[in-house]
């Protein structure tokens, strides 16, 4: 006669399966469903000779008992018994046994399935796989994805506190010791979901720090292929990864850094189509991108979708950091600079160069901001902009606040949705051209001879559009060139054609010769 309704054990001996089943004998039961887990001779494509199970018994016994109690209650079965082996096992040995008795077979099958799935999902068990080639490797048996379909968060056990056992708790021991973190803070980190947009110079250190700290879900939005010129600053990658998709390599590296977290790959561009859904999935977004168009999209999405965005940007040895927190009164990126400047006026890393430590510092600061937000710590940069020069180490925090006239978050906003593209990268507006900026460019006048009489541009090179051939430009297209026509349409077309030929320092002037003549006129005054 059995004297228990559920019992979970750990055994160092070969399992006596017939004896275990017999111990469940029950005159009111009509069904016994049992499961046996065996040691097989291969895993992940490698030949396995045997397994060494190591179990952290006090926690495993408590968690195992909890799983059995849940199953008994959920499926209303008579009794459940489960045993897990520890120590060395050979191929074919039974590593785990689950038996359930109930009045009818359906509940018995379902409870049995629930128990084995949850045991795989929740128990702090490690196995050392001994491979036929002589190697051996410790593998964590906790499978985050192995939970039973009936398993729900917050039911029966917590995924946060109790799941932090054994190796995982050891992992975070030094930060849990901080009163500002503690077990409760670690649980918040585990529950947090952070999206990293751009797995480059900023995203690399940010991702590594967040993964190491135990942020439970990290998303990587990146579509690029790794190039050799990335390696000096993008510390997520190894030289052997060149030519591979960055998102895949980044996810692999972060999972290796911390096997207890979940890393999601989003191999896509950050644009008005992809961002709305992603902002719905994550608690915090790190802007680790390297161009104004994407930075403004992400900054706008922060306000439009109510998700904090931590933004860092680098220029040579200097960087800027700010956190756009839609719940604060610190405002957004557009409160500071209402619109992005035309590409080409400021320069990017490819053009001006960068030392790897500069994005290294700022990416780490982005991770720090994210951790502060998750842990509810003070000092989040939601009402300031941090600027720092890595050479002098001069640092300034500049107070900012919401601008009532901001087109995005002001009192009468004009931006109500993400804009795919606001200023074409290769078009310049006279408002952006000081006489000094203009002096950088060779001006090429695309107008026909008779048109040039109106608003003449005496210093310009003449290249009438009717004879224009982008494959054979009559001017040096490798130097900065500003194309001008009457209104800016022909110059835009010619610019696009030249850029398609690889001449990237070619720009088109919005407003054409009239706008330019006006600028000269102003300068002469």
């Amino acid at each position, binding site marked *: 006669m059995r004297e228990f309704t559920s019992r979970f054990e750990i055994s160092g001996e070969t399992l006596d399966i017939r004896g275990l089943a017999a111990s469940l004998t029950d005159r009111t039961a009509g069904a016994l469903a049992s499961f046996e887990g065996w040691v097989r001779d291969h895993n992940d494509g490698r030949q396995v000779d045997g397994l060494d199970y190591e179990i952290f018994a006090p926690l495993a016994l408590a968690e195992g008992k909890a799983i059995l109690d849940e199953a008994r209650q959920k499926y209303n079965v008579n009794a459940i018994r489960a045993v897990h082996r520890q120590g060395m096992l050979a191929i074919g040995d039974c590593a785990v046994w689950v038996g359930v008795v109930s009045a009818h077979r359906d509940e018995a099958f379902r409870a049995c399935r629930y128990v084995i799935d949850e045991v795989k999902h929740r128990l702090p068990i490690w196995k050392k796989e001994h491979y036929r080639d002589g190697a051996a490797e410790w593998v964590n048996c906790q499978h985050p994805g192995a939970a039973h379909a009936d398993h729900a968060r917050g039911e029966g056990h917590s995924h946060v506190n109790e799941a932090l056992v054994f190796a995982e708790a050891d992992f975070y021991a030094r930060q849990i010791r901080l009163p500002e973190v503690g077990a409760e803070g670690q649980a918040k980190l585990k529950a947090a979901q952070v999206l990293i947009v751009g797995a480059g110079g900023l995203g690399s250190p940010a991702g590594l720090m967040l993964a190491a700290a135990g942020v439970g879900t990290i998303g990587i939005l990146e579509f690029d292929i790794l190039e050799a010129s990335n390696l000096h600053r993008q510390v997520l990658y190894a030289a052997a990864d060149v030519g591979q998709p960055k998102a895949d390599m980044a996810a692999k590296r972060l999972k290796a850094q911390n096997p207890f977290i979940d890393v999601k790959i989003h191999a896509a561009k950050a644009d008005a189509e992809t961002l709305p859904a992603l902002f719905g999935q994550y608690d915090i977004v790190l802007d680790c991108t390297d161009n104004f168009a994407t930075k403004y999209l992400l900054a706008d999405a922060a306000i439009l979708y109510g998700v904090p965005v931590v933004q860092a940007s680098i220029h040579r040895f200097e960087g800027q950091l700010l956190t756009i927190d839609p719940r604060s009164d610190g405002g957004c990126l557009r409160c500071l600079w209402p619109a992005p400047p035309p590409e080409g006026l400021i320069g990017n*890393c490819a053009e001006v160069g960068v030392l790897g430590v500069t994005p290294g510092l700022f990416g780490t600061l982005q991770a720090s901001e994210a951790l502060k937000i998750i842990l509810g710590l003070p000092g989040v940069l939601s009402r300031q902009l941090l600027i720092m020069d890595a050479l002098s180490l001069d640092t300034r925090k500049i107070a900012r606040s919401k601008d009532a006239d901001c087109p995005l978050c002001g009192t009468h906003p004009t931006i109500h949705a993400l804009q795919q593209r606001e200023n074409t990268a290769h078009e310049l507006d006279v408002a952006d051209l000081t006489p000094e900026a203009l002096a950088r460019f060779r001006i090429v006048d695309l107008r026909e001879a008779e048109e040039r009489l109106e608003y003449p541009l005496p210093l310009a090179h003449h290249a009438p559009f009717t004879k224009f051939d982008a494959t054979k430009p009559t001017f040096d297209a490798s130097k900065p060139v500003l194309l001008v026509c009457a209104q800016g349409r022909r110059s835009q077309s010619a610019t696009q054609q030249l850029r398609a030929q690889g001449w990237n320092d070619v720009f088109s002037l919005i407003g054409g010769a009239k706008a330019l003549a006006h600028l000269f006129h102003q300068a002469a005054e």
Partner: protein
Amino acid sequence: MTLPVRLEYFALLREQRGLGAETVQTAASTARDLYRELASAHGFTLAAERVRVAINNEFASWDRPLAANDTIVFIPPVAGG
């Protein structure tokens, strides 16, 4: 009458000025006038509309009158990563 002010330049402006910080005497009455003077003296390629000015660690309007010993930082947006 001129005022002594401390100037700091960020990013592109630092490069175009050729230094990160300096103290100058200025006759300009507002931040905008001061930036205009500097832009023409040092060949800044960014129009004031593209740059933000911070006075004494706070973002300020270009129209803000200057006071003696103000610390004035000119900050263009940057986008590298």
